């Protein structure tokens, strides 16, 4: 992110320095632990592996890796790699080594994600190999290719969750309510001392019209878009049913046609409904529940019908056409990092999504928290 871009930022709060471990040391520690993990996994496979029980083998390796991390974290306060690099794992609000439950939750979550990527890659490769050996099973190669291509996702989630968090708390740390800190930092890491632990992990982005909505709340609001529309929910159900009924028997081309037709029908439905809602009220039901509003950039008002249509169309294509998912990822990054938080659909619609200025900041904060807790209404 280049400094000095469009939009003015408020003064930044002082950088978090105290308890947060350096990313370089964590990478070194993870490298050491990975070597230990590979050795341990191989040992488990040699000792207990069964060529006819591949799922059991995978489970045993996961169990061994989790136990390695959990036991060392519970007893030594960190895995051997972290200890060598001068790091320790602290459970929030607790002195000394993490509790057994926290250490286990942390270890089980992260080792599951770390193991899934090689497993998926292996499964995809095996499927491709099986299909090339047997010409009758061509479609297996497509499935295998998809699995292989998406095998990076677990590692990406794991890495992004650590790098994207200002405190370096990845999915493992969140599952275990822990934080990785320098070994010399012996004190209790208290939740109330951590900036933005509960909400607003980044300083607010302010525009002339109001506060820019957080990207994760916008994403969660999207998941709630059908909360006031039982008819639309039923429509999705009907379309999904239509797509799963093999209308013309086993002919794969007609099945593909039905799936394609129902998808196009859904995209048209989505664009029509979204355009009407946004042009009329500047929000969908999800935005309303989250306390957000879609506004023009020059003044606080819903975008025109044409602009709303362009916005809805770009959004629908990005979300529902798998080929365009990289654009969706780019939009999410723009929403998260940009000074005005505008994704590609906002650019198309000339819009910006704000925390509803009609609500008090406290009411808006509560609605965001409800979205993050997954409970509304």
């Amino acid at each position, binding site marked *: 992110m280049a400094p000095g871009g469009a939009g003015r930022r408020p003064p930044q709060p002082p950088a978090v320095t105290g308890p947060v471990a350096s990313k370089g040391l964590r990478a070194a520690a993870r490298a050491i632990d990975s070597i230990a993990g590979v050795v341990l996994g191989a040992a488990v496979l040699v000792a207990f592996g069964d060529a006819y029980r591949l799922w059991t083998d995978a489970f045993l390796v996961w169990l061994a890796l989790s136990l390695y991390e959990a036991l060392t974290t519970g007893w030594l306060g960190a895995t051997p790699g972290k200890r060598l690099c001068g790091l320790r794992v602290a459970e929030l609000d607790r002195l000394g080594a993490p509790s057994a439950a926290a250490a286990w939750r942390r270890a089980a979550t992260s080792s599951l994600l770390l193991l899934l990527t090689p497993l998926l890659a292996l499964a995809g490769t095996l499927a491709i190999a099986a299909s090339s050996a047997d010409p009758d099973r061509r479609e297996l190669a497509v499935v295998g290719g998809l699995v292989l291509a998406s095998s990076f996702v677990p590692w990406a989630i794991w890495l992004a969750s650590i790098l994207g968090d200002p405190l370096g708390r990845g999915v493992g740390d969140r599952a275990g309510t822990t934080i990785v800190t320098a070994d010399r930092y012996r004190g209790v890491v208290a939740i109330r001392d951590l900036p933005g632990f509960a909400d607003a992990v980044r300083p607010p982005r302010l525009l002339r019209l109001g506060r820019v909505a957080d990207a994760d709340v916008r994403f969660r609001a999207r*998941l709630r878009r*059908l909360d006031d529309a039982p008819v639309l*929910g039923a429509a999705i159900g009907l379309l999904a049913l239509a797509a799963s009924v093999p209308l013309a028997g086993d002919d794969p081309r007609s099945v593909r046609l039905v799936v394609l037709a129902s998808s196009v029908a859904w995209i048209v439905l989505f664009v029509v409904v979204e355009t009407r809602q946004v042009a009329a009220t500047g929000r969908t039901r999800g935005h309303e529940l989250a306390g957000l509003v879609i506004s023009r950039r020059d003044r606080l008002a819903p975008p025109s019908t044409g602009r709303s249509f362009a916005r809805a169309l770009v959004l629908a294509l990005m979300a529902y056409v798998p080929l365009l998912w990289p654009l969706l990822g780019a939009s999410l990054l723009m929403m998260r990092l940009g000074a005005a938080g505008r994704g590609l659909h906002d650019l198309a619609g000339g819009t910006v999504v704000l925390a509803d200025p009609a609500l008090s900041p406290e009411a808006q904060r509560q609605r965001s928290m409800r979205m993050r807790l997954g409970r*509304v209404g």
Partner: protein
Amino acid sequence: MAIPIRDDRSRAVVPWVTLALVVANVVIFLFVQPSGFQFGASEDAVDQQQTWQLRDRDEFLYRYGTVPCEVVARQALADDPADCVGPRSDFLPDDKAILLSLLTAIFLHASIDHLAGNLLFLWVFGAHVEQRLGRANFLGLYVGGGVLASLAFVALHQRSAEPLIGASGAIAVAMGAYLVLVPRGRVLTVIVSAALQVVYVPAAVVLALFFVTQFFIDDEGVAWEAHAAGMLIGIAGALVLSRIPAVRERGRQQELDADLRVGREF
């Protein structure tokens, strides 16, 4: 197809019984069931090893699975009861505890996808039912309802010699109970087909999709009667159990607690 991910109710307690059921099913599938279940040993076995695996798998399947005509005749399939029709395996167990197999069958799974799908539904729908009913009530409803659902299937297929395994009947009980206990619950669901999308939909939509799509799966082995019976049993069981004063009081407390957590009281 609909894949549920989570529901939108806050969790006030650790769902130990649901967790234990998940672990039990996984451990049984991975370590107790013969290796033939893990990659679907094909019927046209080629080498000696695969023949052995097929034999182990079939013997296990017929020993611990519910075979409808056995339950009706109270006689093991190996003794060839008169009322049993249909194809059966060459490898049948000699001594079988027929009534016990009603119980064991609901902890067995035919393949890893069968296991994964069932446990996903159990986790999403079971946790909240456990929280509302209490641990013992939930466990009783799950096991008892699962056995009753199998019995309903037996009643509808009295002469079938095909073994029935899987937790789906018991999980349908949990889903039926969820509909009664959390009628306004919404479930974050991945809807595949009709444009892949992730959205909160009412639990009833997920259950309807689950129920209807099972008819269009090519697989012959879906016991939809057991699912239907399970859902009805779950609905009836939850209606009865929620009349217990302690259960009703717990539900009220949890609603208050959930309101407090999201700050509605302020």
